[in-house]
């Protein structure tokens, strides 16, 4: 225990952008030399090539890369939706998956999906209560109370009994985060959650997510292809190459938290963004040219 806290302090000194909230001791992810082959109709596709990523407990880690680079493959392996071909993934020093073992999906690694996955047939409240309900960890009335409190904290009091189709996409994403957070997961896995949102909504959503992160200090594994989003949110940004997906660059984002829109105009933010753009631009160009070759 003391050693964990020591490690945490060490991490704080190193990056300088650690969560200002409570110290987190659980949720450390270690991805070691992970490779993933797909074999659709005999054509061997290498989706992930020897990826290694280290995420400290309570760290906000962003993976950024061009479309189809294997970001989601990595997330799905952690979530337990499919296996990997070689390498290992550890969660808090316990083996989560390897070539022989697919991770078992569990509520300590909850996924927030790209296009939203609130159950349309349940109201907002019923959606949030879903996790505690099926896990039978709390009584129905306890779960309901916890959900109401959480939704109130998130400013979603007025829509408890609305169906997802009746609320805005921004609201839906907030509810989805609430549905994950109520289970007190070790890791929040976010798969391009703010894709296809307009810039203004995105800004509001980012602020909201950062508020939650600053207050809870959960480990976040966040996937995106939006660089500004990556640097604004993350403590650590990994840039991935086009397929086969490799880790090209690690950018330590040492912008102090809490961050807000002023961060976006700071000199340091722009420097980091430039660094990331250079790395990603090369890859995007490669992806584009590869696409052209395939067409020709």
């Amino acid at each position: 225990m003391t050693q964990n806290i020591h490690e945490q302090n060490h991490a704080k000194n190193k990056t300088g952008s650690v969560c200002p909230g409570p110290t987190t001791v659980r949720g450390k992810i270690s991805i070691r030399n992970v490779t993933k082959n797909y074999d659709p109709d005999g054509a061997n596709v290498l989706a992930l090539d020897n990826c290694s990523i280290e995420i400290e407990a309570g760290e906000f880690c962003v993976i950024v890369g061009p479309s189809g680079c294997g970001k989601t493959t990595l997330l799905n392996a952690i979530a337990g939706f499919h296996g990997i071909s070689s390498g290992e993934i550890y969660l808090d020093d316990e083996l989560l998956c390897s070539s022989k073992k697919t991770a078992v999906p569990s509520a300590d690694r909850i996924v927030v999906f790209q296009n939203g996955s609130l159950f349309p047939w349940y109201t907002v409240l019923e959606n949030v209560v879903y996790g505690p309900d099926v896990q039978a960890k709390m009584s129905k009335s306890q779960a309901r109370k916890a959900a109401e409190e959480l939704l109130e904290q998130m400013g979603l009091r007025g829509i408890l009994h609305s169906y997802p189709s009746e609320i805005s996409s921004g609201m839906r994403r907030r509810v989805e985060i609430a549905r994950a957070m109520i289970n007190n997961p070790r890791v929040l896995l976010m798969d391009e959650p703010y894709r296809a949102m307009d810039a203004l909504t995105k800004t509001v959503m980012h602020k909201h997510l950062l508020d939650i992160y600053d207050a809870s200090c959960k480990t976040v594994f966040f996937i995106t292809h939006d660089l500004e989003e990556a640097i604004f949110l993350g403590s650590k940004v990994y840039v991935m190459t086009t397929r086969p997906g490799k880790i090209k660059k690690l950018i330590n984002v040492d912008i102090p938290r809490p961050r807000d829109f002023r961060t976006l105009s700071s000199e340091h933010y722009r420097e980091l963004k430039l660094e990331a753009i250079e790395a990603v631009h090369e890859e995007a160009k490669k992806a584009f040219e590869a696409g052209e070759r395939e067409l020709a």
Partner: protein
Amino acid sequence: MTKQKPSYFMGINLRKLRKTIFGKATYRGIVAIIGTIIFWEICSRLNVPVIGMIPPPSLVFNSLSELLRDPDYWESWVVSFQRVFTGFIVAQIIGIPIGLIMGINRHFRELSFPIIEILRPIPPLAWVPTAVIFWPTPEMSITFVTFLGAFFTMVLNILGGVKNVDIRYVRAAISLGSSKTDIFWRIILPATLPSLFTGMTVGMGITWEVVVAAEMIASRSGLGFMTWQSYVAGNYPVIVIGMISIGIAGYISSSFIRLLGGRLTPWLKII
């Protein structure tokens, strides 16, 4: 922004109901029906080809006032409704579980799909001779044929519904700690309900088509028989009454399904 409180009666929003009943759509519907009747009467009087051959509304209404006092006419309604609903409900009881199991179990799907695909294209009416042979009473054979009309539609709609359940919902549910039973009852079943009600609506329509034809072939009662019998007897106004009665009966049945569907899938806002 003041919102008037909705007043409810047996779970039905009365204000909304009033709006539906006295809305513009209702007036337009009434105007259209009256207009059609006037058009039909004029065509009959002017002996317009084809339309003019149909007995004019004035004659039809005369026969109708007699028929409405005739218990046999109401008996036909009851008999046809019984056949439709018995066949339909049995089709639900057998078809819904089969469709669901086919959807979630690959072995069962691969075993049963070929059989269903071979039997499905056979029109229910082609079953009439067989049905008459192997069911002890004519009543049972007609009910069996109506059952077939709804059964295959139910199975295929539910199978399609289960296959189209978005993988994201299943994954999200797994990620939140669901067991297989939870996934079935809380994800697959509600996600399939819209297709299930589509199947029911289509199935109900087919059931009425089938029951009428089966009554003409193999029965001595019901609205279909009444219509056919009037043709044989040359009582043309009653043919028209029979046809319109079947139309109204079908409409009542589908309204019932729509109402049920709306109540059970409130997130879709069908009503």
